[in-house]
């Protein structure tokens, strides 16, 4: 369930309160996010839409601990990430967040297997345990037969599936997807959306996705619009 009114709701996975983010441009301060309130339950699939510069990616970056807000708080699983920084925040991100980007952002000199293994290098898993994890997630995304291919040898859809495997391999609490289908044709985009829906349904993952595409957004349980730094709920399904 998603709530935008900021009412206390202690069992929500993500609780955002009075979140503000300003950017400085010269002497001018630009208010990108204005006092946002949002509660997101576990297992939700939410799409954020809005015009360019509306703050969608900024919001995602703040929830993912990639950036610090100007004011306000973000609590994930009862842990306030806006109060931590540096090494603790990095460790939290590695443990709890999976990132999926529009341009896949795979490391070109690593194979699909190695790209997926990358986050596991930060864990204490043994080599054989890492192998097991990587093979499992690659089979979930349907790339077990391409695991030793380099990104340049994969199609766009396959690259994005590898990126999804990398995002879920450490079993994060939630996934952040920034235009995950933005660089794909419709067929590949549908495959990716099906995969994301499967992750929500079968593996109870929580997904927050930024998109420009209404068709893509239609796959989510809830679509939220960001406009002039404010959130508006525009569609709710299921």
């Amino acid at each position: 369930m998603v709530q935008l009114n900021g009412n206390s709701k202690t069992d929500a996975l993500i609780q955002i309160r009075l979140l503000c983010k300003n950017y400085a441009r010269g002497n001018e301060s630009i208010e990108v996010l204005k006092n946002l309130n949002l509660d997101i339950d576990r297992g939700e699939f939410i799409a954020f839409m809005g015009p360019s510069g509306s703050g969608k990616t900024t919001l995602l970056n703040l929830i993912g601990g990639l950036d610090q807000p100007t004011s306000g708080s973000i609590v994930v699983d009862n842990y306030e990430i806006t109060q931590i920084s540096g090494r603790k925040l990095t460790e939290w991100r590695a443990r709890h967040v999976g990132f999926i980007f529009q341009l896949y952002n795979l490391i070109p000199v690593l194979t699909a297997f190695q790209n997926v293994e990358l986050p596991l290098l930060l864990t204490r898993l043994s080599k054989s345990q890492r192998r097991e994890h990587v093979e499992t997630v690659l089979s979930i995304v349907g790339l077990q037969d391409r695991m030793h291919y380099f990104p340049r040898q994969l199609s766009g859809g396959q690259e994005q599936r590898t990126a999804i495997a990398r995002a879920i391999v450490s079993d994060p609490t939630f996934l952040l997807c920034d235009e995950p289908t933005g660089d794909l044709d419709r067929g590949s985009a549908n495959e990716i959306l099906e995969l994301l829906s499967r992750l929500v349904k079968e593996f109870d993952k929580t997904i927050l996705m930024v998109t420009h595409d209404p068709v893509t957004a239609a796959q989510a349980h809830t679509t939220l619009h960001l406009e002039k730094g404010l959130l508006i709920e525009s569609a709710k399904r299921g």
Partner: protein
Amino acid sequence: MNTLSLMFVNFRRKRVRKLLTVCSFAIALFLFGVLAIIYDSFYQPIEVAGADRLIVQNKISIIMPLPYSYYEKLKRIDGIDLVSFAFWFGGVYQSERNFFMQFAVDTETWSQMFPEFIIPPEQLKAFTEDRQGCIIGQSLAKRFNWKVGDRIPLKGTIFPGVWEFNVRGIYQGKRLSDDTSQFWLQYKYLEENSEWLKGFVGWYYVHADDPDKTFEISRTIDTQFANSPFETVTVTEKAWTATFIKQFGNIRLLILLVGGVVFFTLLLITGSNMAMSIRERTGEIGIMKTLGFSGARILFMVLAESLIIALIGGGIGLILAEIFAMQGDPTGGLLTAFYLSPKNIGLGLIIAIMIGLAAGIIPAVQSMRLKIVDALRRV
């Protein structure tokens, strides 16, 4: 895969650039190795020269002889426990290009005066018993492929005629830096066959029983022979060698200048290559940080990458320098102790590490401080 192999994987990109960077390191360290060999060839003799040995030469010049009668007088001076002498032979083997040092020596005292040269006792005995005998250094034997029993003809330049010698022994140095390129013949053989040499020697070596007394001894010797037809100049072997090397000019400054310019250039090349390489991977570094790689780990990886390049290139350069040294002195006898010392190999590796660190530190710190959101914007 682990963090180390992740660093090595980065060598797969921009291979030509990486190869050229490694090559520039290799060339620089090869040059360092060669300069170090040349430097040591000039300055090691000063280091290894006996601090307790003095050379007594004619005040006019080393090429002017001294009377043999000084031998007993020197022995009687307080503080001297051994006296020996030599004469420059100056023969030519086959061609003038085959230069090497030949000394007519006093067979009875020479090996005691220079204990750093190791001669098997039976070879020393054979040398003493054969008027035409000679002892040669190990590097000289290697240079001309001479062995014990060979007969060697030398054309005299100071002493006319062709002189023939039998190789009776081959000496080795106790240290790598000891000069093993010399040729020793018996002084008596020369004296018996040269009328004008009778009663004269080239110069004397005297050994002080206490190194602290060398200044006093040299003053005593020179005072004793002052105002005689054969006045002397007495200096320690160390000072004498240093003066001799000074004649070649300021080799030290030349080597430091060349080495300095080479390494500064190398630093600029490697530094710009590393910076370029990291700038190209800004987005990837952002991704790695997003995945949970800490700034410290990124710093370590970038620095390690720079160090790996430095060590591979530096290692290749030093191996090439060692191979070069193994070919022997290319000047045909000027550089007597021609080798790359373990100290210089270590120094070369330290220099490679320092340059690797210096070249990598700025991009490494920039990567560590890189904000993820800024890096992702550049993807």
